[in-house]
């Protein structure tokens, strides 16, 4: 078990965003996290990655308690994330973007040049080979998403949280992104994937967790979960 969420609670004023949430993730799993808009998926990501502090409950990762740690500390324990709206370091080159992740997100004692070489490989891996010296601000949406993944991978995560990687992509781009996600999953990194495109989520995930109004309403085998009445009700209404 790599991640354990226990009785997690988070509310904003009177609105309960995450309600007594409980689940575990095993090493190497690819979890699909779905739910209607406003069901608390991004809030959960923000809680796990430290951008929000839970009101109560705990998060254990890789044997240690990470509840309430700051984002950069959580990153160094081995959890990386991408943002739904990409946040590139626009005034820096693509290579520099990734080097930040490499040199700050994981142990680093080497020389800058060495990091550069490693990061060039990561760029190639996500399909941005040869684009390292371009400013991130010059990238289109697809390349920004690739860059976001590359920067996250550079921190050498054990667990990667992918927040809506597919939104705004065309069909072909989606296929490529899907392959990339699968390759990352096969490399042994545990993944939690938030996605609206059902085809993608069914294709990629080994287990599905469904949130509605901050509560877990279903969990298990993807094919079975999507036939679950509660889930259909949550998406389509009564």
């Amino acid at each position, binding site marked *: 078990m790599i991640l354990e969420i226990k009785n997690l609670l988070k509310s904003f004023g009177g609105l309960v965003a995450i309600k007594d949430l409980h689940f575990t993730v095993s090493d190497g799993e690819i979890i699909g996290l779905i739910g209607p808009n406003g069901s608390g998926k991004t809030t959960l990501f923000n809680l796990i*990655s*430290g*951008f929000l502090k839970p009101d109560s409950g705990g998060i254990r990762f890789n044997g240690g308690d990470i509840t309430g740690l*700051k*984002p*950069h500390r959580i*990153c*160094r324990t081995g959890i*990386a*994330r991408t*943002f739904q709206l990409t*946040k*590139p*370091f*626009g*005034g*820096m*080159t693509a*290579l*520099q973007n990734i*080097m*930040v*992740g490499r*040199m*700050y*997100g*994981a142990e*680093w004692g080497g020389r*800058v040049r060495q*990091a550069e070489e490693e990061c060039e490989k990561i760029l190639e891996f996500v399909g941005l080979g040869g684009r*390292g*010296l*371009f*400013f991130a601000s*010059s990238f289109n949406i697809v390349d920004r998403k690739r860059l976001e993944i590359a*920067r*996250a991978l*550079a*921190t050498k995560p054990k667990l990667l949280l992918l927040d809506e990687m597919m939104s705004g992509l065309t069909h072909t781009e989606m296929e490529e992104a899907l392959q990339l996600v699968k390759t990352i999953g096969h490399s042994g990194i545990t993944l939690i994937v938030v996605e609206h495109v059902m085809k993608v989520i069914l294709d990629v995930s080994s287990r599905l967790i469904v949130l509605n109004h901050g509560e877990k309403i279903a969990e298990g085998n993807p094919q079975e979960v999507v036939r679950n009445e509660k889930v259909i009700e949550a998406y389509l209404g009564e």
Partner: protein
Amino acid sequence: MNRKTSSLSMGKLFSISGIIVVLLALIPLLTGRTDVITWFTFTLMYVTLSQSWNIIGGYTGQQNLGHAAFFGIGALTARYLWLFGMPLPLALLAGSLAAAAFAIIIGFPAFRLKGVYFVIGTLVLAEILRIVFDTLLPRASVLPSRLLNVYSLTPRYYLNLIIAVLAIGCVYWISRSKFGLGLMSIRENVDAAEASGVNTQKYKLLAFLLSTFMSGLAGGTYAYYASAAQPGYLFSAVWTFDAVIIAFVGGVGTILGPVIGSVFFVLIQQLLSLYLPGGIHVLVFGILFILVVLFLPGGLIGLWKKITGPDSKNGGGRIDSRD
């Protein structure tokens, strides 16, 4: 990519810089004209001052408008210690340390302020100090006759030369180090920096310390230069705005921008003061600053790169850290 050619141009850059420094070192031997040496002394002091602002404002993206506070603390501390008989290098060091120490005290609350509140907060801070010192020490500090009798510009010039070279070297190191990458990531996006493992609070504060230390050092060189100095004037907002304008006009967040900006600034200042009534150069620079911010965000350096390199997207630009 073409690393060989670029490391060659890197070597070229170093040799050119070396030659320039040697030529600058020869100036007092070549000319006895005090006006020329004063120009150069001021240019070099502005290089240090604007580079110091460049670290926090340009590289880290925290628009500190209280920079004069640290210049003033450095200047005042160094001046009084030096006049009390402390050796000059130690007095300068003490001044810089005092500036940095003050930065620690106000850094924690100041960085809780975001965006425009940080800008206003730092601006107010410097003004408060100016008023305090105008009230506490209303009389100008004049060099005693034992020092005035032996006053020479040459050591002032060399001191500023050495410190300016160190300041440029420091920014050069920042621009190609892990430290600098961290600072730039904060400037570009704080959340993404945190998510990538950067302790943004810590690195903001480190940048602030380095910047204020350097600003205090610039203040110290001024304290050593000035035969008479009004304590309140050392905290005047002019020091902040000169630094900011120089950095922006030259090219903010670059190594050479503040250098070019300083040369340009002093040149214009001197030319205008020859033909126009005093103080007009401030107006000219204010207008220039607005024009640069609106139409030339990269400053003179950016303009130069636009003219010389058609592949402006490829490397270069605001960050000269990649070769």
